[in-house]
């Protein structure tokens, strides 16, 4: 499938329109849900860390430190990608799958269009902007932790910020973005595969969306494990 995606290219003027449309739907359309989830989960991470710090010998700046590490290393890149597998992945599967069952893909093929390139390539390119979504998620997750800590009286603003700066390793950001970029590729291709090769009718579109979510999540989790072993271990 991938060979055909990068095979005969669709006319650039058409492809450009598709890419912008997919950026709007897949990236801009996801910003709302990503912002809300990131902010509140960041807040919950901070609260739970604070509630588990019963030992007075452990410094309170650990709240900021733990929030930063959790959000940057795992929550934003990995768990947000699994949420996106549900949102973006099921959209890709159902939109391509519906085109399959309503013969729209046949219509494109008969016109002599490389349907793999026309349907899947713009999604891969659009999702190259996915790391920007994750950057926003990181920022809002940490902001959520800060707001929860300060307004909830868990620690002062200065202590939280001190924790944020504590033992900071910039390579962790690189690691997060390396895996985010890889996940963005999975987010585009695994659901597209399930939609493109769908057989049947409307019921199968629903089933394929569920299957694609499961498989995209599994692939992301496995890839996360392998990349972490290769880069951080």
């Amino acid at each position, binding site marked *: 499938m991938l060979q055909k995606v990068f095979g005969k290219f*669709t*006319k650039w*003027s*058409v492809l450009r329109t598709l890419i912008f*449309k997919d950026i709007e739907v897949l990236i801009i359309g996801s910003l709302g849900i990503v912002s809300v989830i990131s902010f509140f989960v960041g807040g919950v991470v901070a609260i739970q860390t604070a509630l588990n710090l019963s030992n007075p010998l452990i410094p309170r700046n650990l709240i900021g430190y733990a929030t930063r590490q959790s959000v940057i290393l795992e929550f934003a890149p990995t768990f947000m990608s699994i949420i996106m597998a549900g949102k973006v992945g099921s959209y890709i599967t159902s939109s391509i799958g*519906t*085109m399959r069952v*309503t*013969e*729209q893909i*046949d*219509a494109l*093929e*008969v*016109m*002599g*269009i490389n349907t793999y390139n026309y349907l899947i390539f713009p999604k891969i390119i659009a999702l190259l902007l996915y790391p920007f979504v994750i950057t926003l998620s990181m920022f809002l997750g940490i902001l959520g932790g800060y707001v929860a800590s300060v307004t909830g009286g868990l620690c002062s603003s200065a202590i939280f910020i001190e924790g944020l700066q504590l033992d900071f390793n910039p390579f962790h950001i690189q690691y997060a973005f390396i895996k985010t970029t890889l996940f963005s590729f999975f987010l585009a291709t695994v659901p597209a595969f399930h939609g493109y090769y769908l057989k049947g009718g409307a019921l199968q579109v629903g089933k394929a969306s569920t299957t694609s979510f499961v498989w995209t999540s599994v692939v992301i989790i496995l890839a996360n494990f392998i990349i972490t072993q290769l880069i951080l271990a």
Partner: protein
Amino acid sequence: MITVKNIFKVFDKTTILNNISASFKKGKTNLIIGQSGSGKTVLLKCLLGLHVPEKGEIFFGDESLIDMKEKQRRMLRQEMGIVFQGSALFDSMNVEENIMFPLKMFTNNNDEEILDRVNEVIKRVNLTNSNYKMPSELSGGMQKRVAIARAIVMNPKFLFCDEPNSGLDPKTSILIDNLIQEITKEYNITTVINTHDMNSVMEIGENIIFLQNGKKEWEGSNLDIFDTDNKPFIDFVYSSEILKKARKALKNSKADL
């Protein structure tokens, strides 16, 4: 003209098309008819190049579809217009965008030229004032008109219609059939229609190929229907007792004359 010579198509050890030979004539409405499961759609998909037959030849003019290289096949496909059973309009595009899609993909015309051509075909299929409607806002008959407009916008040499009047009421079906026949004459193209609608057969069947269990059982025109003695074809056409009686009465009255 399209010529099919001795084609066989097998799916899962079941022979779907069994030694089919036929000619689809230019400037005429060629109908492939038969019961569900008779192999009509598979034959149509073989003509479109979506299925490759195990044996046999398909010629578009003098060129063999099966021997064509991918590039030649793509060029040929740009000379084909297709109306799918469910219309296959692109959901995310309005009427105008659906029709202009092939022009944007395959021509270097500017926006003004494209829009002129789109409005020309919209007028031809009697769909004016619907340019900005989405497919979901259109009736079945209007969707078929948009599909026909999209199929002819590139001035094709070949027009393929898969059950163009399925899901339509009899009156709209006849309007769509007549539109297809008019376009066939006007553009002098080879039109192949896959149908099991007897109204279409009687109305526009200039060259009819009847399939049963993957075999060609009968070939002729709508004018030959009353005179044939081919039993499978008679059983298909005169499937109801009323029609059988009408045929008998017609034969008797001819004999009296």
